């Protein structure tokens, strides 16, 4: 799957964060919440103004975050490759 904006991912889509193109302050906020490059996320809901995602967690209850459309448009994601996916959703280092 090509790299696309998070805002274009449909509900239920499971993707990996490739790049975050936000200003430093907002990027820090997302990083501190766990939304870093390599994090796998599931889109819970998407509408015209916001995208709600869940950070995949091994405990099963990942952090749920609402992002406004402008923010979701600046997060680049790609599909999770099932063959290489770590079931714990670990980050790439």
């Amino acid at each position: 799957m090509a790299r696309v904006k998070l805002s274009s991912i449909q509900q239920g889509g499971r993707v990996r964060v490739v790049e975050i193109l936000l200003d430093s302050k907002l990027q820090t906020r997302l990083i501190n919440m766990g939304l870093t490059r390599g994090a796998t996320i599931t889109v819970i809901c998407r509408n015209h103004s916001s995208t709600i995602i869940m950070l995949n967690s091994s405990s099963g209850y990942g952090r749920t975050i609402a992002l406004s459309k402008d923010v979701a448009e600046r997060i680049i994601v790609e599909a999770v490759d099932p063959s290489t996916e770590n079931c714990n959703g670990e980050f790439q280092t």
Partner: protein
Amino acid sequence: MSLRELGCSVVVGVIGQPNVGKTTLFNVLTGSMERVGNFPGTTVEMKVGRRAFGGGVVCFVDLPGIYGLKAVSVDERIARDFILYGDWDVLLVLVDSTLPVETSYLLLQILQLTRRVVVALTKYDEAERLGVEVDADLLRRSLGVPFVRVSALKGAGLSELLAELVRVGGSSGGEPLRIGFGAAESAIERLARVVGGSRARGLAYLILSGDVELGERVGVSRGAAESLKKEILMVSGRDSEELLASTLYNFAREVVQPAVRLLRGAGGERSILLEVFSRPIAGALLSILVLFTAVFTAFTVNTGFPFTALLRVLGFVEAAEVVERYTVSGLVEALFDWVGDSVAEFLGGGFVAEFIAGGVIEGVAIVAQFAPLVFVALAVVSAIEDSGLGPLMAVSLHGLFRRFGLSGRAVYPVLISLGCNVPGVVASRAAVDGVERLSIVASASFIPCQARLIVLLALVGAIIPGDPVLQSLAVLLVYAGGFILYLVTALLFRRFAAGVRGASELVLELPRPHWPSLRVVFWSSWSAARHFIVRAGTILVAFVVIVWILSHTGFSGYTGDPSSSFAFYIGSSIGFVLKPLFDLSCESSWVVGFAVLIGFIAKENIISTIAVVRGVGDVLGGLGLNPVQGASLLIFFMYYIPCAATATTIWMEVRSVKFTLALIGYTAVVSLTLSLIFYRTALLLGV
């Protein structure tokens, strides 16, 4: 006053990520909270709670809820500076048992700076219900600090937690945690050598995460830090902040994950509320319904409105009056009327009796009448926040408010302001960012409050007598006008005063919704209301006393005749401006000017002032105004300057005299312009 002067034998800094249950635990541990000045260099108040334990007094300092220590906001700077430079003995770090890996991120940042830490694993009962069990002993062995499982709501684990806090508070804690950072390790190590000291690696971590200010404070130039960050980028191909955060999260997984046991297949639970609130139209409608129900319940408890309005419409006028009499505000008003009359009778009349009964006691009464409304409104907001519904509502309404530069959270202040602008301004604290908060503060006073509703109904009844349909339409138009002014002012403030384009961005964690804790709701609301009474009360009472003196004294001393008082001259000076604009007569212009002045103290007094001064109940007839003049003045009265209580609250929220005065000037100009446009247009059209 320092914490040691408060008699604290152990000082505990309480810190955790948002939604980990910090407020609940703080409340259960301390039961009360004091404000002991501000955090150094900020206007953010330091809140301290105390608890007697083991023969001493354990003091808890409530630090802001933050996700990480890199200081990009005031909250993060406060937390970072308190941890690095504050006078504390031990840190109580909260980790959510339902999200143990994610919420350990902040803990790991802190452990790189100090091990004088006790970790509270909060919400462990909820975690067990969800099928997640966290092994506190394994975590203690892995990270070298005590982990205590606590349930604030059940009171479980608190004694053990207090004992650990006292024990660790009296120890050195040992060396900070050392974490390897792979491709960034070399840069971390070299920077740590420059910084020096036992917490050098933790500081190096924060500096290379982009905390430039911290770097300069410990003697690392911006250039040196940037050079090392570039080196990390070249070696790893990744931004240093992002690489360090990812490494820390992975470390959390390596260390914390083995201590997490899934008792059954967890993760399948979906929130029905989340599903409903995330739907564009249904979510927005539900949010508005919840807020209207909650807020109007608050107003009904306080003033009977809108229940009393409904009773009157249905013809039950006497029942409405009974309800008004026995509401909280009605009882408070009756109490102070009785106190005022008793004092006047005891003192036997005269200037002193009038001054105490009509000035001092009346001033206290105004504050006392506002206090319950403030308390209940804050309780409503607190309950919505504590239940986790607040973030869901903010998301569902974001689509509407973003068109005006606001985020979905701006809906709370709007609805609360319908009852009273004072708690409406206070509710601006829910805003996402500082600019949005100021936008709301600047706009909230345009929302017609209950006090203005009294003026509105009286004037509309006089201008359009005997036509309930047109009267209702006029009332609706005034409210619609208030909403439009609120939104437009917020947009103008954001664009031109703050110089920011686009809407406030929404990045918001959505906690699992749950029933709010009544204890926490009461505690936080009472704490804030008490603060309001003490601070706003002091200023407002002084203000009311000054105005009373102006309206009861003149050049010949004490006078019972307002037309020979200093207020007459002040009213005349305001009336002098209004007279040519609205073609007012000499007799009516000073009374209108005087009403404007009185309306600044309390808007509901505008009508009574006109009626008392002119000696007739007919507002328009008493002033000799035609309906067009009356309608123009109605527009002016609806939107002109915030009342004294609101102005005082605005000043308390922004701590800027300049901002407050500019806002008063802006609202005066806007209201005058709108009313003049209406008046002149009506004249041109020959109405």
